[in-house]
């Protein structure tokens, strides 16, 4: 007689439930399967804080050279910061790093404040609005375009294609033609800008990449294009999604929101806790450069490994009461921006823009609520963010 066996645990990052709420799955992974092979995505899944932290430091074993997005986009591997290893990574990063250093971002503060005021005025008039469309993406596209010297009239088209680029098809479990086409649009777009900057260099990031040399060699065309496209992707989507997650959290935790609205000096704490609690970049990928045993599982050279940053940040082995959003928490060591050599290049940029944008948002709109019962989440194996976040001002 057949017996009913316990249903096998699955970890399928293509399922919609993973987009909306991956945290219960993470907990099972951490507690029962700390090194888990997922047939659904054909890679090992690491979920505990210590393991993810280690993978970030041991870049020689956990290599980024075959892509870092769970579903990689064509042409990126080996041509961007996130998809190369040291030493080339370090040299490429050095060229770009200074543009993202805090003291080189100060000139963006006043224009960002102006933009936030303008966008908030419109939102206040609307009363009910979509935070993603009407607020967060307006801010991030605006500031990123200002930083990179890109023309304002391209905002809409660029953002639309950025969104397509980060999505995956849930049925076929890979990037669909529309997602590839979205990314192709972005790379063609950057290619045009590169051509213009070659003809007439300006004082901006793309010109700097064109003129730069590493060990006497110019950067390859693909490196310039893929790196710039990735910065646009991250600057527009990761940051916009982060703002959205923060607005979402504060709708869910009104006490924290009211404290911030009354005292915006709490913003840095709120930012760090949001990065820990549910940042938008949930999962990234590495490839093993040698055989490795972890938690009794034998992994092989060439195997892909998924690093669940969003799980590490909820690991009760590292954070006390990790599922509680706590403004008073010591968040030191959180992996909301990753860690190690691939620590998010834009971390200072993101913190600065968020402090200005959300500080002003909570001050002007201390009371709001989510106007729908259920949110639609982006189908993405790497990022987690709502497609729309409909909000209504008031209690």
């Amino acid at each position: 007689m057949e017996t009913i066996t316990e249903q096998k645990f699955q970890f399928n990052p293509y399922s919609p439930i993973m987009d909306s709420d991956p945290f219960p799955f993470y907990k099972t992974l951490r507690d029962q399967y700390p090194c888990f092979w997922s047939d659904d995505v054909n890679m090992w899944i690491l979920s505990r804080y210590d393991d993810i932290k280690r993978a970030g430091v041991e870049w020689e074993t956990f290599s980024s050279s075959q892509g870092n997005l769970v579903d990689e986009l064509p042409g990126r591997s080996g041509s961007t910061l996130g998809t190369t290893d040291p030493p080339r990574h370090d040299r490429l990063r050095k060229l770009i790093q200074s543009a993202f250093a805090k003291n080189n971002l100060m000139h963006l503060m006043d224009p960002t404040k102006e933009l936030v005021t303008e966008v908030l005025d419109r939102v206040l008039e609307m009363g009910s609005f979509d935070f993603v469309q009407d607020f967060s993406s307006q801010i991030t596209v605006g500031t990123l375009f200002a930083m990179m010297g890109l023309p304002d009239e391209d905002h809409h088209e660029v953002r639309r294609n950025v969104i397509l680029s980060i999505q995956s098809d849930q049925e076929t479990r890979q990037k669909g033609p529309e997602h590839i086409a979205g990314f192709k649009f972005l790379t063609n777009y950057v290619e045009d800008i590169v051509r213009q900057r070659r003809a007439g260099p300006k004082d901006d990031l793309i010109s700097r990449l064109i003129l730069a040399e590493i060990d006497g060699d110019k950067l390859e065309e693909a490196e310039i294009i893929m790196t710039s496209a990735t910065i646009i992707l991250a600057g527009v989507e990761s940051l916009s999604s982060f703002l959205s997650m923060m607005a979402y959290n504060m709708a869910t935790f009104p006490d924290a929101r009211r404290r911030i609205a009354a005292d915006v000096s709490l913003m840095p704490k709120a930012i760090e806790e949001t990065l820990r609690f549910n940042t938008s970049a949930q999962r990234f990928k590495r490839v093993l450069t040698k055989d490795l045993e972890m938690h009794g599982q034998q992994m092989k050279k060439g195997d892909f490994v998924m690093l669940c940053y969003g799980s590490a940040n909820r690991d009760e082995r590292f954070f006390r009461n990790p599922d509680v959003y706590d403004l008073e928490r010591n968040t030191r060591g959180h992996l909301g921006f990753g860690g190690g050599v691939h620590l998010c290049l834009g971390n200072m940029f993101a913190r600065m823009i968020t402090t200005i944008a959300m500080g002003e948002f909570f001050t002007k709109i201390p009371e709001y609520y989510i106007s729908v019962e259920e949110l639609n989440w982006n189908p993405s194996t790497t990022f987690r963010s709502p497609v729309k976040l409909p909000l209504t001002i008031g209690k």
Partner: protein
Amino acid sequence: MPQITYIDSDGNKHQVELPLGATIMEGAVQNDIKGIIAECGGSCMCATCHCYIAEDYLDKLPEMEEEEDEMLEGAVAPRTERSRLGCQVRISNALDGLVVEIPQEQ
């Protein structure tokens, strides 16, 4: 083991002993010294372990590499002659008695 004194970002003094070969950043993180963030974990990628080294020890430090120099340019607190990234300075016997000051901002 060499003795190091940290003055944290609130101005409080902490005297600790550090093993040879540890970095100033690691010593600060392990002893929970306020003001060192060390977000990138010692990869010289974030400038959040910026510290000021006591003047009389400056010539006993390992030489600064170009990467550290570049990162320090992006540090939040003012860069001075005494500025170093804690992750790039390893403890040696010559550093016994060193005083390290942590800036208020990283």
